[in-house]
């Protein structure tokens, strides 16, 4: 027999109370696992999609708040912000610019709101700027009303090369000339059009959402950015792809704050639950603790006993919570996707991992054990003769 045996047996005295206390830790650990998984996953997805895998080093956008620009680019839509197409020729002359991709990005939501299509008008330069933009079948636009479909939208619509699809929004038929390989990014859900066609469809001829640039030598990025700034009008801006990603993550920060507030609330509830449970347990067992002191239990023994009881609850609750957090993270990822306004990566935005679960488990266990110190201290201070005489 050891202290843990006694502690575990004490927890069995009032199983409902022990289980409820454990459940508060389950909620805390699960919430922490989910929130950290979402936080890490979203940042990682944004970085991977916008910064690492696109091959775009810089964007030229309309001057203004870079976060707003990021949102406009990411969300498409018919923003009043635009870049003049004439800038394309100017920036092409810069010696460190390898490829220039002017694009027009917009979205069209069907009348009943059940679906939003993403359209992107591009030029052949996209194949140089975006190494991940590869055809699975078919090829470049065959006519001004040809489309190239992302893998997911082609699959959803059941379209193949040569098929003709009718767009109610534009009252026009489009011929499918190419289908892209799946890259698990936003491209998978995008309909690509020739740039001029895209501009015409939304009556924005000569206007671009932004210009994407690929540099020859990215070690000269800062210098190139300054030089490019000097080449474009003062009301335009040059953004690094990292800044674009950071801008989007800043949009996400309010969501992030709310999520972490949820974690704090869950923790506070757990803390009160544990302190309350252990204080009750101590108060109910004052005479018994007094007797244990009679038979030789020292202050340290009583401290150890009460702390072990809490430790047992904390380990069980935190472990279960961390695993539940791992299991439900993907569902919360999908839920978050429906709430995000800044930018929604097409891959999973939940990135649960064993290291996150371990962190949640250790944090919750540690907090729980710290919470037990006050009740344990109260128990250790019990004076046997006072309790046995007065109660």
């Amino acid at each position, binding site marked *: 027999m*050891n*202290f843990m045996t*006694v502690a575990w047996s004490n927890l069995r005295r009032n199983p409902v109370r022990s289980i409820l206390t454990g459940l508060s830790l389950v909620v805390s650990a699960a919430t922490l696992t989910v929130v950290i998984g979402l936080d890490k996953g979203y940042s990682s997805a944004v970085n991977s999609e916008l910064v690492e895998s696109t091959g775009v080093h810089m964007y030229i956008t309309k001057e203004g708040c870079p976060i707003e620009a990021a949102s406009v680019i990411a969300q498409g839509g018919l923003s009043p912000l635009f870049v003049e197409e004439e800038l394309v020729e100017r920036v092409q002359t810069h010696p460190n610019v390898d490829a220039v991709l002017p694009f027009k990005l917009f979205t069209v939501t069907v009348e009943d709101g059940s679906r939003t299509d993403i359209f992107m008008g591009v030029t052949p330069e996209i194949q140089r700027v975006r190494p991940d933009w590869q055809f699975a079948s078919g090829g470049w636009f065959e006519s001004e009303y040809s489309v190239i479909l992302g893998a997911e939208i082609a699959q959803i619509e059941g379209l193949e090369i040569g098929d003709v699809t009718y767009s109610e929004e534009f009252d026009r038929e489009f011929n499918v000339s190419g289908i892209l390989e799946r890259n698990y990014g936003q491209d998978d859900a995008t309909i690509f059009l020739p740039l001029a066609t895209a501009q015409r469809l939304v009556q924005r001829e000569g206007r671009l959402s932004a210009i994407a640039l690929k540099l020859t030598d990215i070690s000269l990025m800062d210098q190139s950015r300054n030089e490019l700034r000097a080449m474009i009008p003062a009301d335009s801006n040059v953004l690094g792809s990292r800044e674009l990603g950071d801008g989007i993550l800043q949009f996400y920060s309010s969501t992030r704050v709310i999520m972490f507030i949820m974690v704090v609330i869950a923790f506070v509830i757990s803390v009160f639950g544990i302190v309350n449970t252990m204080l009750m347990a101590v108060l109910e067992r004052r005479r018994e603790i007094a007797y244990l002191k009679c*038979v030789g239990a020292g202050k340290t023994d009583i401290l150890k006993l009460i702390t072990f009881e809490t430790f047992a609850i904390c380990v069980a609750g935190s472990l279960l919570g961390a695993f539940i957090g791992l299991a439900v993270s993907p569902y919360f990822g999908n839920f978050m996707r429906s709430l995000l306004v800044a930018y929604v990566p097409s891959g999973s935005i939940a990135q649960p991992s064993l290291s996150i679960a371990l962190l949640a488990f250790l944090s919750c266990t540690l907090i729980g054990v710290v919470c037990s110190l006050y009740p344990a201290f109260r128990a250790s201070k019990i004076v046997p*003769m006072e309790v*046995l*005489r007065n109660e």
Partner: protein
Amino acid sequence: MNNNGYLIHMESVSKDFRRGSETIHALREANLSVHPGEFIAVVGHSGSGKTTLMNIIGCLDRPTSGYVRIADHKIKDLPEKELTQIRKTTIGFVFQQFFLIPTLTVLQNVMLPGLFARQNVEKRARELLGLVGLKNRLSHLPDQLSGGEMQRVAIARSLINNPSILLADEPTGNLDSHNAGNIISMFEQFNRTGLTIVMVTHNPDIATRCSKIVHIEDGCLTA
């Protein structure tokens, strides 16, 4: 052992308590000497100071004044840690309430003080439970036992660390006369092996079975 051969020696021991503005004199100039192997009954009315006397002998409380020696220890000035050590090694306690942990088995309850003494006492616990007639009840939980059986478990537990002194505060108070008689017989049996017992009781029939009766009234002891 002290020089006089007493296991318990008290001289002019007083214990006062404050209750609000009032001072309660729980013990007044009490003298008590107990030789090893004696079986003493402490008899007195409620509030006469019996429990205070037991607490001082049991190193659970210190006297306000006077001299107390338990085995080789002068307890008045000992720190709490050493008093705990004396309780752990020298004194066993049996109370009217059994204080068994309801979720531990009979065997585990008896072994509990060994946990605090950092000793493996399972073998001795089994032997003691055999001596108190409960060797077939080792894995039972306390709520599966009768009152008499629970007190026998409590007695086995009080002896697990092989104490020199057994302090029993109304050990038969919750038992019927048959079970009370059995418990006292058990005390007599352990006393014959050399265990010193100091027992508080209200019951004059039980007191007469002890080798010495000490009366206590208003904190004053009379043999």
